């Protein structure tokens, strides 16, 4: 007999379980695909621990493909071995955090609990730190504890001065010192070109390339996998009911269609996560199951053109300036324009073709500056003091198609303005 569970609490639990998968820290039970690659990594780490081998490897793949997930998964599996768990030291570095070698060295010392650290603080200058670190690594041999270096955003480490850190790390991996394994994680496929010659020659050139090879069927499977509740969920009856509902959801033609469109834009898993965020967060006790309409809403939200929506919020004066600029760019073949030219064009329209109110130059200038603030137009030169703002050369950052699309649904747009936008030149 299953214990009685309050439906409100149940909805909460479902949401908590599913929401966790949307966060950045979640590591799934098994990686999606990449079986071989996982094996490679685990083998490498195991060899370091068991035989004292030093290795270096680069994990390369596009953003959001699951590099970190794969790595965390592999390490989790390696650490199941008790011998490994006690003997391995890990150092996590990220190119975003350790922006220069000085910070990186301190971070390494901190994570390894070296002698020059007290509590959370590391002492000494850069040179001292480096010397100390190298000495302590050199003094080790095959018998000493293996260290695993994980360098996230590896390409940013290559931008450090002289690449000192990378050189020293790879050098240690090359020579018979303390056993270390360096795993670099990056999204740049040309990362080898960033390395200096001496650094490159010390690197083992072992690369693991990750590509997204999901077919649409697998993609749907991943979608299902993300939404299904785990076996560990307290109420098993509800789990089967829920999982059935997910199966049914995936059979739905509209969902299939939306998924197909997502797939054709990008088969990225992270995009899929964002896509699921809205519907999952919309779950409540009154609406305990996922709705098709929520997914459609979510897709619409993701696929709206943001610049069109910014254009939609402009006033009619600003919109007519954009139309004038569009005409000018078409007429003069993409040459830059300035405010005076646009104002002249605007005057020609409003004096000849329309019965609308003609505004003063200064009012129009304010509208022009607003367009510049929302970055629909961009000044060509950086300096602003050299010439008056009326004469600064500008370019338009709106595509004619976007303008056309917006004009169709613009609220209470005067017919003259619409007509002006479609007729190319007056």
């Amino acid at each position, binding site marked *: 007999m299953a214990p009685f569970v309050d439906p*409100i609490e149940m909805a*909460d639990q479902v*949401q*908590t379980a599913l*929401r966790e998968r*949307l*966060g*950045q*820290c979640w590591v799934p039970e098994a990686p999606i695909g990449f079986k071989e690659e996982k094996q490679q990594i685990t083998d490498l780490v195991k060899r370091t621990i068991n035989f004292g081998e030093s290795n270096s490897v680069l994990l390369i793949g596009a*953003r*959001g493909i699951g590099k*970190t997930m794969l790595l965390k998964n592999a390490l989790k599996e390696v650490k199941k071995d008790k011998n490994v768990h006690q003997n391995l030291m890990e150092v996590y570095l*990220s*190119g*975003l*955090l*350790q*922006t220069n070698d000085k*910070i990186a060295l301190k971070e390494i010392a901190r994570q390894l609990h070296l002698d020059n650290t007290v509590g*959370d603080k590391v002492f000494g200058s850069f040179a001292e730190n480096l010397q100390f670190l190298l000495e302590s690594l050199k003094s080790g041999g095959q018998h000493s504890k293996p260290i695993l270096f994980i360098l996230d955003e590896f390409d940013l480490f290559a931008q450090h001065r002289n690449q000192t850190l990378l050189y020293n790390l790879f050098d240690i991996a090359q020579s018979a010192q303390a056993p270390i394994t360096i795993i670099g994680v990056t*999204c740049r496929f040309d990362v080898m070109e960033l390395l200096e010659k001496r650094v490159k020659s010390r690197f083992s050139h072992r690369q693991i390339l990750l590509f997204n090879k999901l077919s649409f069927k697998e993609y749907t499977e991943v979608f299902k996998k993300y939404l299904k509740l785990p076996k560990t969920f307290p109420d098993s009856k509800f789990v089967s009911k829920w999982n059935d509902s997910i199966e049914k959801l995936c059979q739905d033609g509209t969902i299939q269609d939306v998924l197909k469109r997502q797939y054709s834009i990008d088969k990225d898993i*992270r995009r899929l996560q*964002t896509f699921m*965020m*809205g519907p999952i*967060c*919309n779950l*409540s006790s*009154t609406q305990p199951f996922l709705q098709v309409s929520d997914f459609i809403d979510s897709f619409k*939200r*993701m696929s*709206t053109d*943001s*610049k069109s*929506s*910014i254009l*939609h*919020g*402009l*006033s009619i*004066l600003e919109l007519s300036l954009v139309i004038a600029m569009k005409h000018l760019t078409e007429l*003069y073949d993409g040459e830059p324009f*300035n405010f*005076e*030219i646009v104002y*002249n064009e605007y005057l020609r329209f409003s004096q000849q073709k329309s019965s*609308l109110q003609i505004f003063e130059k*200064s*009012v129009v200038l*304010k*509208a022009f500056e607003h367009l510049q603030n*929302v*970055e629909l137009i961009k000044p060509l030169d950086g300096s602003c*003091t*050299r*010439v*008056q703002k*009326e*004469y600064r050369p500008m370019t338009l950052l709106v595509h004619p198609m976007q303008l056309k699309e917006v004009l169709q649904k613009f*609220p209470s747009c005067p017919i003259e303005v619409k007509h002006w936008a479609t007729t190319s030149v007056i």
Partner: protein
Amino acid sequence: MPFLDSVAKLQNALPCRTKQIQLLVNLFGKKSQISPPALFIYGHTGTGKTLTVRSILDELQCKVVWINCIECYSAKVLYEQILLKINVKEEEDHPSFDDYSKCDNLNDFCRLLPAAVQELGYSEETIYIVLDKAEKLRQMEPHILSGLLKLQELTNLNISVILLTDIVWEKFRCNTGTYEPYIIHFPDYSREEILEIMSLDHPKEYPKELYDTYISLVLSVFYYVCRDLKELRHLASINLEKFLEPLKNGEATMNDSRKLWKNIEPHLKKALQTVYLREVSSAQWEKMQQDTNSGQQMALQLHSIQGRNHLELPFYSKYLLIAAYLASYNPAKTDRRFFCKKSNKIYGSLRKKKHERTSNHLLGPKLFTLDRLMAIFYSIVEDRVAPSAILFLQISSLVTLKLLTTVASDDQLETPKYKCLVSLDTIKPIARSVNFDIIRYLYDFL
């Protein structure tokens, strides 16, 4: 539904934002649940982004850190501000500055933040970091935005970073990419929605319908130019006094909408050219309404303000400026025609109509050399002037006044090159004050 009451309450307090409130409340969820790592909220200024997010987070009583990126001029200040604001305990008004830690870089920040959170006992709930005016983040450090968007992964905490801005996400992406946030658009208010929101602040002593008619009058003048709610509200509030004047005097009743319209319309149109552009400050405008009942006096005052273009310069400086203007806006090949002593006549009729694009008044001022400036100067000044040091000093003082600018700065003594930065509206009164007809000498106006 747990938040049903608070959602209804919020939706009443913030009209026309029903959908967005529902969406945000759903995304935030319960305190113990994981929130989306990063939210990106964009929309025009005055669409209630800050207000909505702030009131939702206040209503749900979440732990929030509010940061305005304009105040934080460097990354260091930003990190320290966040840490400082996290450390504020409810009972204390001011955080003690001793435990406010020094934090230079993102590395220290990611180390200190979990420690602070742990200490204060927030580890069980979501912490929201709201960054208002997030477009300024792009100008700070190269990777600060990527770092902040990945904060959940880097610190291993339940953190949600919310970016508020009026610029689209496409302009935030850096070249190697970053974590893509969940993007939410706050659409602009339609005319009806603006009416609804603005009628919320109607004065108590008059009926709401009267205020509604007033608002629609204001909109009929300003809506074409401006859809910013803040601006419209301000304009409505400062012109209300004038609108109510006939009612107070007894000249009109509340039903005389035509009469009221006749009264206020010219006033509002004038406001478009003055207060809207901030040429007259709001205080001045209100003062004008009080003490100038006759329109004549007001027009006089306005005239004096619009005469701000008037420049008081020494006699020869004026001529120098005029010469610089002529040199900037006339092509060099026409100089002979305009300024040569022998040909007193100007053959205007010989010229055929030029193409618009070539007009210098559209393209902006051109460069000219000092020689050309002096040549034009001597030809337009009637009496003889010695090329004294004072005369040349006046040129450089015009440069410091930003009326002229030096361009190629490589050779300042030999052949300095200048540009004139004065507009036609400014140069005209100057030319008039020395009895010089500048239009006759301008190539564009032949």
